[in-house]
């Protein structure tokens, strides 16, 4: 096209999208500790919204998916079904020790984790629970990865 206009438009859209990250949070049987810290990361003191983040209620609008909890038997199928609805490219961030390893619940008959059994995990945030600053760092890392993924999709 004229002056590579289509490429420039795609780049501009990518740039804009990298500054508007919509978060979707899945609780896969978490004790609520990490969920509270995720909410805390969005409060004015930590203010993840500065990075362009916004908590969304639908997986279909998500750019970054935050998963907390050790993936219980009851939540496994729902987790997989919800993740299947997230449009590519997206980043999967696990929050806390549970989704990475099962934490103290590992070996239980009711635990089907870790999450990376089902989907590729892009960034893990360890801690029980992680501090909001650590979650912010994880989101920032995920944002960088997402930018790369978007660029990769156009090449």
């Amino acid at each position: 096209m004229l002056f590579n206009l289509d490429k420039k438009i795609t780049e501009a859209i990518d740039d804009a999208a990298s500054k508007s990250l919509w978060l979707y949070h899945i609780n896969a049987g978490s004790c609520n500790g990490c969920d509270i810290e995720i909410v805390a990361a969005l409060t004015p003191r930590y203010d993840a919204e500065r990075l362009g983040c916004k908590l969304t209620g639908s997986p279909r609008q998500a750019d970054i998916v935050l998963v907390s909890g050790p993936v219980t038997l009851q939540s496994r199928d729902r987790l997989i079904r919800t993740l299947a609805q997230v449009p590519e490219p997206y980043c999967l961030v696990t929050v806390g020790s549970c989704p990475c390893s099962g934490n103290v619940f590992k070996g239980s008959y009711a635990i089907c984790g870790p999450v990376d059994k089902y989907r590729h995990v892009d960034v893990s945030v360890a801690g029980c629970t992680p501090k909001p600053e650590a979650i912010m760092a994880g989101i920032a890392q995920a944002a960088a990865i997402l930018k790369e993924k978007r660029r990769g999709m156009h090449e």
Partner: protein
Amino acid sequence: MAKLPYLGTALTNLFRKPVTIAFPAGEAPAAQPAYRGRIAFDASKCINCGMCERVCAPSCMTRVAKPLEGGEPGDQEITFTFDMTSCTFCGMCADFCAKKAITLTEDYMMTGIIAEDFLVTGKVIKKAPPKPKFTPEQLAAMKAAAEAKKKAAEAAKAAAQQA
């Protein structure tokens, strides 16, 4: 004049510093004192008693023993690996470690992409106990010899008394 509620507060807020912390643009703030964060393991203090592994509820550490390269036969190199994605930061291992080899630091910034980002490792050298000077057979022979000597001495004594 109509009273303007909150005007004072609004005006002072205009000149106040923001409450939002600058991170991730600036420095990450320090954790509160006695915060239990990433584990630090001092292998030089550890005596490989295994207590930390016993008290850890999520069994987050592994100990792998292999023969020490270039050491005496029987020497072992024991690798401790603490997986921070498995830890609940309860501090039990640090409390139970008799040698205070484990401490929980105030570093809470634990984000990563691969599993290796979260591992804390340390290598402990376990020396084989010193070899005994004599084998059990030698010891038994020495004991028998000593006993025979004692008996002979006693017999000689008895003979001297009778004479």
